[in-house]
């Protein structure tokens, strides 16, 4: 059982539409996996199934050798299974600093304390600051989220996930909406993650995918149609047709 994280035969359909057909996947410690595939292939659904937002009709999710399929979403987070949202879900009236502080406090189990003050809590402020700095959010740290640009909100999503110190991190299009000038920030943040962490990233930005991933899985119509090294992906005709299009050509020329 060297795999940190494994799913077996995950299956789900909405009405007549099968969005996840018997997906099995495993990730060892330190894995950097990219999950790509056409729109509506079932990638986000896969993340929802893994994190417990949705219940699969069949299949198991195993973390650290423990079957977590029966656990709720919150317990899975506490066990180290953390995600970001494709469409940002943030507290529009709170500041990035407050978001991250709250997350750190929660991780430490101090978030529901009635004693002590939330603001100016020196025990966590150092860590909060370094997380915000990693993602370049210091400048907007004290502005309400509703007032900061969308790209920055995406970065904050990642900041929150990092603040949870996950074992397995599932990133749903972390770079969508983040300008190419700022994607390096995300990459840097990912690089600084503890090496033992397993990361699964869904992304349509192929440059980022190829820089990041050690392994690529391609999902189409709820099924894994390809699994292998990044260098092999562009060569696969099925993937080219279903997903890559001209990108594959550009790539093979380059």
């Amino acid at each position, binding site marked *: 059982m060297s795999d940190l994280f494994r799913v077996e035969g995950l299956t789900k359909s909405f009405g007549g539409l099968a969005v996840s057909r018997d997906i099995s996947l495993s990730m060892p410690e330190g894995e950097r996996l990219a999950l790509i595939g056409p*729109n509506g292939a079932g990638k986000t659904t896969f993340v929802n199934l893994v994190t417990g937002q949705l219940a699969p009709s069949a299949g198991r999710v195993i973390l650290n050798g423990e079957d977590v399929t029966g656990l709720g979403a919150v317990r899975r987070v506490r066990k180290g299974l953390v995600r970001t949202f494709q469409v940002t879900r943030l507290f529009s009236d709170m500041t990035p600093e407050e978001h991250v502080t709250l997350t750190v406090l929660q991780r430490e189990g101090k978030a529901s304390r009635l004693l002590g003050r939330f603001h100016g809590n020196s025990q966590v402020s150092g860590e909060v600051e370094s997380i915000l700095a990693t993602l370049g959010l210091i400048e907007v740290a004290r502005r309400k989220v509703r007032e900061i640009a969308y790209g920055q909100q995406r970065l904050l999503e990642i900041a929150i996930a990092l603040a949870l110190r996950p074992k397995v991190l599932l990133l749903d299009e972390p770079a969508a909406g983040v300008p190419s*000038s700022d994607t390096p920030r995300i990459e840097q943040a990912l690089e600084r993650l503890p090496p033992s962490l397993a990361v699964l990233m869904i992304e349509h930005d192929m440059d980022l995918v190829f820089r990041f991933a050690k392994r690529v899985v391609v999902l189409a119509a709820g099924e894994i149609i390809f699994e292998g090294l990044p260098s092999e992906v562009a060569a696969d005709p099925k993937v080219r047709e279903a997903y890559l299009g001209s990108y594959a050509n550009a790539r093979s020329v380059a």
Partner: protein
Amino acid sequence: MPAASLDVRGLSAGYGPTVVLEDLSFSVPAGSRLSILGRNGMGKTTLLASLMGMTRRYGGEIRVDGSDIASAKSSERAMRGIGLVPQTRDIFRSLTVEENLLVGIKGRPRSVIEEAYEMFPRLKERRRNLGWQLSGGEQQMLSTARTILGRPSVLLLDEPLEGLAPVICDELMAAFSRLAASGEMTILLVEQRLESALDFADSVMILERGRIVWQGTSETLRSDHELVERYIGVGSLH
């Protein structure tokens, strides 16, 4: 409606008390393509939203084919031919795909939604699904299709490729180019991917902190690496 020209003079706009755009002036000839570039939070979205009438205007003129629409409500602007595909997609979550499209047809016959289905066959498969059930990319397709169905003469695209599979991006950019080339639409595109943006547009405008800091042709920008580095960031061009 054929493509219209767009003239912006001294536009200042923002949200509530915050002024984001200051004194912007530029013009886009009918049927041409303009890319708007700029780092995160520099005001690209705000600019497009202001053209659509969705922000607070502090001053300036917006002329479409010569007539000023700066004080018109967004619905009037829509009727005068402006169409926006917003960055946040803003699909109607509780409506079905088909109903979403019907909102966008602006009085054209119902049957025109077939055009949208042709452009995005994926949407046809999901036509009875509610908006919130769609995947991210499907929402993006829906948002784009919905606006295009209204046949705008000035089309404002705010990062329309976000979240789309590369193969769809290609098709979509090709479609945009066709629409512009046919003389039906003037297109303003905000796009993070420099290459796509330059490939698409005749001319380019760079925003920084709510002001225009550079305007010129795509060719000039493509060849001027220093400029790119200064305003947009390193490593953007391959």
